[in-house]
């Protein structure tokens, strides 16, 4: 039982990432009708926003401290981050420490700009082209963005630490009456899960309770009619693309302490996220979120030892097996709407 709870928890953080990317993918598909193979790259760019911010914050000025000597007997050079010089030692150190959560503030404008440029510059011209062309051009874009990031940040994963306040693990089992040290869960993963719940809730609330969201939902149902009512639906859809990019980007930025960002991470997540979207049902937002968490947790269950003893290697392929079963038994996915992508 405790093992099951532990694996559920372990699956939640990966499931959160899947759900967030899949949510963005579905938003883009549902509004613009475009299959975006570059969405994983947006996740990766978000992660590198965190890296950039951390590097920016730790830019240091070098001063010579004549009172101390290094091992050669010369005056010691002391590096002080500018941020500590400006805001005082404690506040500065705290800001550097919190750079990953703070990077959301950087990621939001960056991702909005990236999203708008991408949509207006490239994807706009592909509304009417076949889905195969959309897949191919965004696939090409993904390669380009990935290589640009690789050029500037190198090919190796860059460790990015969470704030030290979240460094340890939480003894989750004690809360539920298990003996201590039975179910241990890192704080940051908990934070990531809560973060994803907040983001997902915000997106749904935005679509459900604002006029803007209502128009977007109307446009998803029948774009032409909404356009005929004199509403500039294209502009709203472009904004939704930006929002989807922001969701992916912030998800990537917050994911950095769990998995050191490397330029390949986007594509690795993308392949799985597409499976998630298809399992959830193309075009269904709740379906994407549900299947994201579902597949994340199932993947984590499958990595339990006694299951691996029964079916060796199941942890590597469980997601694909589920995808195949779902697609063959429920062709529209778990919660797919009728008439979406059925040509």
């Amino acid at each position, binding site marked *: 039982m405790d093992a099951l709870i532990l694996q559920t928890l372990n699956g939640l953080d990966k499931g959160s990432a899947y759900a967030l990317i899949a949510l963005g993918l579905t938003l883009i598909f549902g509004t613009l009708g475009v299959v975006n193979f570059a969405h994983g790259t947006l996740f990766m760019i978000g992660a590198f926003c965190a890296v950039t911010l951390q590097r920016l914050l730790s830019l240091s000025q070098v001063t010579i401290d004549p009172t101390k000597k290094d091992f050669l007997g010369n005056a010691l050079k002391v590096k002080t981050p500018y941020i500590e010089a400006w805001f005082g030692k404690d506040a500065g150190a705290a800001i550097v420490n919190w750079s990953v959560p703070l990077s959301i503030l950087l990621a939001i404008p960056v991702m909005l700009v990236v999203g708008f440029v991408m949509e207006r510059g490239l994807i706009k011209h592909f509304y009417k082209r076949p889905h195969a062309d959309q897949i191919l051009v965004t696939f*090409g*874009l993904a390669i380009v963005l990935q290589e640009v990031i690789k050029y500037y940040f190198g090919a190796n994963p860059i460790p990015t630490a969470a704030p030290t306040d979240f460094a340890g693990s939480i003894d989750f089992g004690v809360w539920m009456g298990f003996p201590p040290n039975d179910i241990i869960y890192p704080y940051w993963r908990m934070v990531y899960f809560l973060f994803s719940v907040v983001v997902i809730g915000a997106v749904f609330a935005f679509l459900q309770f604002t006029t803007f969201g209502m128009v977007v939902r109307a446009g998803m149902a029948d774009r032409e009619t909404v356009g005929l009512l004199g509403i500039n639906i294209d502009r709203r859809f472009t904004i939704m693309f930006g929002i989807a990019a922001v969701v992916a980007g912030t998800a990537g930025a917050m994911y950095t302490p769990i998995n050191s960002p490397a330029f390949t991470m986007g594509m690795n997540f993308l392949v799985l996220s597409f499976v998630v979207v298809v399992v959830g049902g193309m075009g269904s937002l709740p379906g994407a979120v549900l299947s994201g968490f579902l597949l994340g947790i199932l993947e984590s269950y499958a990595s339990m030892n006694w299951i691996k003893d029964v079916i060796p290697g199941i942890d590597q*392929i469980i997601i694909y097996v589920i995808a195949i079963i779902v*697609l063959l038994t429920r062709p529209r996915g778990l919660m797919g709407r009728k008439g979406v*992508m059925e040509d």
Partner: protein
Amino acid sequence: MLGLGKKDLTFLLIVLLLTLAAPILLNPFAEGSAMAQFNAGYPDLMQRIAIFAIFAVGFNILFGLTGYLSFGHAAFIGIGSYAMVWMLKLLTMNILPGLILATLMGGAFALLIGFVSLRRSGIYFSILTLAFAQMSFNMAYSVLTPITGGENGLGPALGDPRVLDAAAANGTIPEVNLFGLSMRATYELDLAGRVFQFNAGYYVCGLLSVFMFYLALRLFRSPFGMMLRAIKCNQHRLNYTGLHSRPYMLSAFVISGMYAGLAGGLMAAMDPLAGADRMQWQASGEVVLMVILGGVGTMLGPVLGAGFIKYCENIFSKINDHVLHEWFSIFPKWLENLLVTIVHPFVGQGWHLTLGVLFMLVVIFLPGGLIEGGQRIGRLIRRKPDAKGKAAATTPAE
């Protein structure tokens, strides 16, 4: 002759001649000259071009004719490679049984995967094939390690049974061969400052690829090919006429799987080491790039695309800052440095960036690939005198 029209026959003969003469044609620059690095006439690269041409031509039968975009064809390459290496290990170092088994295994797995995947179309089909390929990749990497060698890859070893071969007396692994002709055997011809290398392995790959090209040509011109085109055109209407299109789709899928299996087998025959990374989705993406870049649905397009990508991959990766400085040394120093800085991200390690940009440009502006580009240029050249005449005719009227 050969069941081809006169035009196709000439076309095939030209392809055959080009293949045979490739070691000479691809080596136009003298040894030691500054341009020598652009030579492509060495066996390793030519073999790879021929092998990927087979792969791309096979993929084009599925994607070009039926419009079904598979993102998992690399799985068949991997399966073919493993089949080949196992034949080298168990039976004989002669590549023939291995090639046959690789082709059959590719076809068998394609039958299995296609039977399931073809129930869906569009993006669902792409995702399903991708899922199967990733599944094979993950399994080859983990559970199936006894069969696939896992991370280390699979290669012939000294202790292998090789029941058909006589035991090697000197305790070395015998060379990969075709009825005694070693795949490494190379005849070097030193002529006019150029070293032409005629490699047995290349000719095996090249002739096989011409043969596979011929089969594809027949298939394109056959009623079966017509049916596949009809599926691409409008599958619904085809179904309304009371025709069950799935068997046709499945045959196309299996045929392209066999092409991929053969390509994988050849890959392992030229370099007897099979690794799981051949099955990864990047490899599937690569063949899609080749076909798109060359021209979807055309005969020569995939071959051109395969040659172009493999050639550029080799050449671009070799260019470094030193070479760039040499090229731009005719400009003033500041301009030279600027140009080098601009070009630097696109060459050497950054070759994939060039590929990505190129690919995007082709998809955006030239959906028909290099072939369409060539046709457009051809039309432009032919129209020029014509346009001039028109302009002359209209001038007085103004």
